[in-house]
């Protein structure tokens, strides 16, 4: 039997971790991720899980100890946000090359400077090129389910790559919603246990992990990593189908909301997609044909599938909650890339919103939709939502 519990997004993720009961969890506090490791530490303290924890002295050591434990053969998790991800970046970047299936929830938050603890996506958008699977979640429910999906995906023998599961700092992270927690036994059976082929604690079969590769082999190894990444999309759908049997939900690469006959569409990640869906409903009720695309699997990016659903929509606006200074905003760049292959492409408009936790309202999204519907857009000029002056 599933149970409904009023949970914050961070607690929902901690619930997934409770059900997964990893061998090792490595913890270093950083707002707004901190509640995840605190809830989990309480489960350990109360004997609800029998995980060994390592409360380390920094995020850099957090990812390092996670790597050590994963290489040793354990199923291991840690969590982070913002500056923490930035500090651990060196080691984060090494994980895909080591082919270790680590799952790390990330509670998205702005990067310094200026220092700001509130939500935007500049932390994970800085880590899109290094080989982690990235899955974004709209709410606590999705964050919980994505954790379960991610662990199976990362550990699949054809993949063996790390995965980040994102949710919006404070908005999803601390906002409390009713979350459906599925039956412990069913979830435990679904996630199973990690059974690595090779691991350091198997001293009978010693292996060397993380050697030096010179120009004669480095390129080939990176190409193999890309090959593993190419398996993700297919296996994501397969594992999603398996998870559907428990949750009765679907796990597509992205959610299409009333897109098919739309005159204008918005693309936006995470919690803002919820606000956008309400806006779509309101505008549809007024007879305006608008729709939404909410990417979930962001790495690897499903270019072809996105192209298929957006190709007949006259105008597409992409809302980014981060900037890429001197370049197109990250999500916009992907959508533009996806559509390039078309002979007749939708008109495009890039919007940046919500940096450092700036609120976005339905009225803002409605205004953007109306701009898109007017056709007065420019694919070259970034527009800003909620920017003062």
């Amino acid at each position, binding site marked *: 039997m599933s149970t409904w519990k009023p949970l914050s997004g961070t607690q929902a993720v901690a619930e997934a971790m409770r059900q997964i009961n990893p061998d090792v969890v490595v913890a270093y506090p950083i707002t707004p991720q901190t509640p995840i490791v605190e809830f989990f530490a309480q489960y350990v303290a109360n004997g609800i899980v029998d995980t060994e924890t390592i409360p380390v002295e*920094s995020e850099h*050591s957090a990812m390092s100890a996670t790597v050590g434990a994963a290489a040793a053969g354990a199923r291991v998790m840690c969590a982070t946000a913002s500056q923490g991800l930035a500090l651990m970046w060196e080691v984060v970047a090494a994980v895909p090359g080591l082919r270790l299936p680590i799952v790390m929830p990330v509670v998205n938050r702005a990067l310094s400077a200026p220092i700001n603890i509130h939500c935007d996506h500049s932390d994970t958008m800085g880590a899109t090129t290094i080989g982690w699977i990235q899955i974004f979640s709209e709410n606590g429910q999705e964050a919980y389910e994505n954790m379960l999906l991610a662990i199976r995906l990362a550990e699949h023998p054809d993949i063996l790559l790390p995965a980040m599961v994102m949710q919006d700092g404070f908005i999803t992270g601390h906002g409390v919603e009713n979350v459906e927690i599925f039956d412990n036994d069913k979830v435990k059976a679904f996630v199973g246990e990690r059974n690595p082929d090779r691991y*350091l*604690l198997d*001293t009978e079969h010693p*292996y060397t992990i993380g050697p*030096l590769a010179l120009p004669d082999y480095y390129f080939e190894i990176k190409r193999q990593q890309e090959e593993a990444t190419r398996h993700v999309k297919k296996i994501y759908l397969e594992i999603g189908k398996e998870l559907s049997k428990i949750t009765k939900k679907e796990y597509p690469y992205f959610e299409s909301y009333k897109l098919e006959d739309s005159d204008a569409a918005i693309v936006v990640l995470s919690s803002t997609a919820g606000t956008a869906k309400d806006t779509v409903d309101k505008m549809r009720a007024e007879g305006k044909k608008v729709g939404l695309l909410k990417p979930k699997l962001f790495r690897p990016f499903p270019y072809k599938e996105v192209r298929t659903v957006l190709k007949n929509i006259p105008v597409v606006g992409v809302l980014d909650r981060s900037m890429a200074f001197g370049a197109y905003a990250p999500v916009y760049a992907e959508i533009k890339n996806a559509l390039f292959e078309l002979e007749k492409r939708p008109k495009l408009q890039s919007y940046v919103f919500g940096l450092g936790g700036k609120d976005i309202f339905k009225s803002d999204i409605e205004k953007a939709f109306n701009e898109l519907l007017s056709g007065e857009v420019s694919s070259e000029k970034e527009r800003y939502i909620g920017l003062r002056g």
Partner: protein
Amino acid sequence: MATLQEIMSKPVGLAPGHRMCAGCGIGSMVRAILAASDKPVIIANATGCLEVVTTIYPYSAWKVPWVHVTFENAAAVASGIETAYKSLRKRGKIDKDVNILAFGGDGGTYDIGFQALSGSLERGHNFMYVVYDNEGYMNTGNQRSAATPYGASTTTVPAGSKSFGKPQWRKNIVEIAAAHRIPYTAQAANHNIIDLYNKAKKGFEADGPAFLAVLQPCTTNWRFDPALTMSYSKLAVETNFWPLYEVENGKVHVNYKPKNRKPIEEFLNGQGRFKHLFKAKNKHVIEKMQMMIDKEWGRLLKLEESGIEL
């Protein structure tokens, strides 16, 4: 007690033959340490000479499980391995005893790796950390580290008309490690294999973290005849530049006391990095170095005599 021949002929996890520089002592150091473990050993290795020369893909010199991640995190990686070991054992997924060992050079230990090392020692993970100390960033070309001795000329702090080389004394990593109140800390040198072996054995057997600093003269960047590696290691000890001592549950024990302490010039002489010190204008540098060595040695003996716990 094991003889030198027994120690060095014991089959260990490092294959014979190596890609190290001519005259490098890292191989014999690793062999002596691995020989001291009677359990399977798992190694976390920081970036550095040892890592580079033993694992040039697709080859590996390691016949034991071995991992390298980055420059500064060997201690944190070892914490992860040790915790995974505890967890998998508790859950009945493995059932054997192992020893966990971390290797780092002085740059990856005294400097950039210092935080990870301190964190691991403070948390009490049961593994031994070994720093092979060649007193600088030798793998990248003789840059200064916190282990580089006073007066040495390095590429980042070179001697010149206005400089005599490094103006600071080296960081006392052994006492800093001991200050974490860990059960075993020691300083060893590459020429004294039996002492090194005994210390490694105590480190492996300690109930908690152990820290071992081993002097590893670097023929390439100290610039001496590759035949003289062990001689320079010995001179470092005979001059009291590198005392052999251990801190066991806080108590200091000096393992070797030279009967006639040799002057520091004998250690400096013939090393390219100290060549400039023999010019008349730098006489004061050698004098100060001698004074500091004598003072440190006197302090160490007093610590031993007093029985005060570090």
